[in-house]
């Protein structure tokens, strides 16, 4: 039998005795997550803005699909990316399977619908206010999208944070396409799963605490940036 108190104290000892291995795992987690969020924003922000601002045939269907994809099962995405990147798959020659790049691809597929669907809602509401003014000014479609994304930028920071939350907590897809290879594709969530199954609960808990602290820190940094950006915009 284990004592929860003992495990907690040992977990904090591990955190205090921070080692290179821990740095590597945390560093790779952040690299994969932030890369995926960045790529998702590059795709999802303009995509969501276009669906939110323009009327076109199939818009309703696209909205339903985007909303539905927000709940994509990670293991299904992992399996799909695995099949695409495996030696017999169409992208096999790229040899990306079991690399951080494969993990970034899987996370991007998971996060992009979240960014796009939430952006669509934010932009749709703003466009409702701006539509006549923009039409009066004769804005071209690309000018509309750029102006809407710029004016909604503070709300969109929260959208990016929602994407970060999904990506940083993800385990199923990255485990399948990354393989949890030590020093290559081992990230915090996959390590927690592995160490828990091995009974090494101290390390699993220590990583869990680090993961939570990192999530809080990233949110705090983005919120601080948002507040200072709002002030700077009108300074």
């Amino acid at each position: 039998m284990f004592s929860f108190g003992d495990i907690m104290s040992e977990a904090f000892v591990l955190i205090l005795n921070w080692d290179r291995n821990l740095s590597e795992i945390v560093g790779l987690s952040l690299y994969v997550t932030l890369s995926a969020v960045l790529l998702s924003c590059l795709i999802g922000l303009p995509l969501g803005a276009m669906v939110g601002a323009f009327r076109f045939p199939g818009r309703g269907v696209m909205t339903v699909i985007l909303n539905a994809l927000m709940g994509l099962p990670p293991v299904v995405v992992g399996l799909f990316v695995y099949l695409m990147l495996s030696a017999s798959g169409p992208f096999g020659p790229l040899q990306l399977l079991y690399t951080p790049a494969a993990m970034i691809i899987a996370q991007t597929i998971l996060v992009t619908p979240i960014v796009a669907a939430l952006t669509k809602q934010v932009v749709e509401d703003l466009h409702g206010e701006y539509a006549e003014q923009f039409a009066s000014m004769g804005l071209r479609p690309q000018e509309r999208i750029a102006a809407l994304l710029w004016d909604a930028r503070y709300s969109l920071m929260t959208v990016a944070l929602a994407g970060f939350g999904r990506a940083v907590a993800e385990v199923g897809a990255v485990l399948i396409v990354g393989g949890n290879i030590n020093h290559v594709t081992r990230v915090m969530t996959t390590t927690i799963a592995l160490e828990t199954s091995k009974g090494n609960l101290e390390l699993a808990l220590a990583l869990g605490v680090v993961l939570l602290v990192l999530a809080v820190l990233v949110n705090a940094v983005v919120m601080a940036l948002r507040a200072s950006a709002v002030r700077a915009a009108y300074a």
Partner: protein
Amino acid sequence: MRDTVMDMTPAEVATRIPLLEARGLSFDAGGTRLIHDLSLSIPEGRRLLIMGANGAGKSLILRLLHGLLTPSAGQVLWQGQAPDEKARRAQAMVFQRPVMLRRSVLANLNFALSVHGVRGAERAAEAAHALELAGLSELARHPARVLSGGEQQRLALARALVCKPRLLFLDEPTSSLDPASTQRIEDLINAAHMRGVTIVMVTHDMGQARRMGDEVIFLHAGQVAECGPIDQVLGKPRSEAARAWTQGRLYTGTTF
């Protein structure tokens, strides 16, 4: 005799072709005809007012003329031709409720100038000049959305005028403003008119109509009840709808 615009010199076009023209304009919504077969022409430099009771179709006509709505029948012509992107950018509109971008006062002006391809030092100079004319220089760095109603309307007008439109549409720009704010807005509109800007304005205010208009179109239930010089229509109205309006009576008839 040359009949088409393509055959004329720019000077001939300016003298013979109205800046904006509506031919047989109708607009339906929800199976109801809201605007009936409206035809009008607006020569360059003119101040045309559109008046009528609530629901008469004044704002609808403004939006149809400006191209914000597509007519169910008829057409709008810009200098004798279907309006293109260049025509759109030669027009501006100030709405009854000003639409402020979520930016500073200065950034609102800069945005409008950027859309018209004005950048760099020229943009800065134009924006500063527009702020000065509108009396908003002190508020340049303030968020536009925290300005008072009068200040927002002045900014909306400055933003419309900074791009030097040839035609300015105004939808009751002073409807919710106090007399001092109304005066400042009227001064800005008059200054623009003096620079040659054609004005098409919706108003309910007969005093403002006499101060600001050359001609008036009086609407009733989506149809032109009467049109002509301001003094004639407001002083000696020929239609019952306009007469009731000037006397402060409610007119619910279907004939004029």
